[in-house]
């Protein structure tokens, strides 16, 4: 597969960086080449975080890029922050719980996912909304097998799972719901 480029942006604390890293890690587990790189401002919370992930069958020469194949905004101000990464054909996901104004996204097919409501009602844990988003993202990434995520999630969240064993099933459920929303 050619180099598939993903940009994700959210408010600090929403998990944009973790999502970017987990996807890259899972791709690596499947034998793909992958890079993930964060960009964040000085505030951990209250600032906007963005992250870049690339997945390819070939070595990836540079960690940043100018146009994305998959574009994800977790909050309204994220839309402005990463608008420049849109190109014709970019697949777009927005967390419609926070993204209400889609005027910048006319001309793109947008997957509007109310991830917080879905996570709250179906998983009973609204904080797993980023797992819903991640599942939806994986549903749109060619050549990536969702099965690799179980292991990667377990490794990434091992300390959190120890403290809260319920979270494992919740994360996996949220991921599966998101995946089902976009995967055709």
């Amino acid at each position, binding site marked *: 597969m050619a180099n598939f480029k993903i940009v994700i942006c959210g408010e600090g604390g929403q998990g944009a960086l973790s999502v970017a*890293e987990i996807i*890259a*890690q899972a791709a*690596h587990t499947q034998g793909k*080449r*992958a*890079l*993930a*790189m*964060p*960009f*964040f*401002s*000085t505030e951990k919370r209250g600032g906007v975080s963005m992250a870049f992930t690339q997945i390819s069958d070939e070595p*990836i*020469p*540079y*960690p*940043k*890029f*100018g146009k994305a194949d998959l574009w994800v905004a977790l909050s309204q101000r994220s839309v402005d922050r990463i608008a420049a990464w849109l190109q014709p054909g970019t697949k777009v996901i927005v967390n419609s719980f926070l993204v209400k104004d889609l005027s910048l996204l006319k001309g793109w097919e947008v997957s509007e996912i109310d991830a917080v409501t879905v996570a709250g009602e179906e998983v009973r844990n609204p904080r797993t909304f980023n797992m819903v988003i991640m599942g939806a993202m994986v549903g749109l990434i060619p050549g990536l097998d969702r099965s690799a995520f179980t292991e990667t999630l377990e490794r990434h969240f091992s300390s959190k799972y120890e403290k809260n064993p319920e979270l494992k099933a919740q994360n996996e459920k949220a991921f599966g719901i998101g995946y089902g929303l976009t995967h055709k």
Partner: protein
Amino acid sequence: MAEKKFLMGNEILGQAARAAGARAFYGYPITPSSEIAHFWAKEACSEGGQKDDLVFLQAEDEIGAGFMLIGGILAGTRSFTATAGPGHILMQDSLAMAEAMRLPCVYYVMQRGGPSTSTVIYSQQEVNLACFGGNGNGYRIVYSPSNLQEMFDYGIRVFDVAWKYRFPTILLGDGMLAKTLGEVETYSVGERGLVMAEPEAYMLERSPRKRPIADIMPSPEFEVRAGEDGTEYDCYRNCLNWEEEALAVNEETKDAFVKAAEEVTEWEEYGQKESRILVVAHGIVSAGVKSAIDQMGTGEARLFRPITLRPFPERQLREAAVGADRIIIAESADNQLGRIVKDALYGSGIDIVEHYRPSISILPEEIVGLIRSNAD
């Protein structure tokens, strides 16, 4: 055993220091280098780390950390630190002393965007500081890696070079390399046949020293003193009284640096030799230039990349410039690499285009455009 791992650049550096046999880390965490300190703290507490008697010490600031590092080096321990941006500024205090005293301190520096409190992630604006900071003449060795694998490879090499040549040695990365997560092959020095220069105490009783002190340090700074019980100690002096004395030390240090440069200087050339445009870039920007050359595939441009920024491959650059109609200098800083390159090329008469983008990444597509607009 060689192993493919999926790690962040900073973790790769931690593993490199471990593979190089480093024992002590003295530092103060600062973005984007903090995970190096995190790695070492965790490693020092691990079973293997305790067995190897690893030291992790967080100082009150980078000034304190830098002088603790010097203490570790004087005691003969393979020691290092990691810092970035404003921390790198404070670290120049100890670095200048290490330079003056020929101390093989190792610094992992991850450049971050300035002015200091703006973006914490990326820039190449610490070249001046790394190469020429302090009140000396820039007798340090500075490596600029361009990808994650080189972070590991040169992360090991700095420990050998520092002790072999007795100059402070810096691995100058940037926030992008530090924070990128990707694949790397780690290995032990033994399986690659790498022989690391062994650390040795500077302040020591005379008898157990393995080689003459004169091999190690400029003679005017050294004297022997007897302790109360008559034991003789090598004492290292960093206070010079006369201009002539200072000149003698400077000249001796310079001679040693020039000699080391013959063996240490590293560079890389990429692309077809007959290309008329020569792009000069270092670190991650040079990775972008390679990608641009590959994307174009037309042979219009080639790359010259200094791997050591100090000592700079001046002669090699002048040789590479032969046949070039135009030289493009590209860096994420304003005229820091540029000044060094123009100094090396002085008198060549070749047209130079300066592309300075302080604190912002330079994408391969941007370099393609730059090459095309200069190709006519």
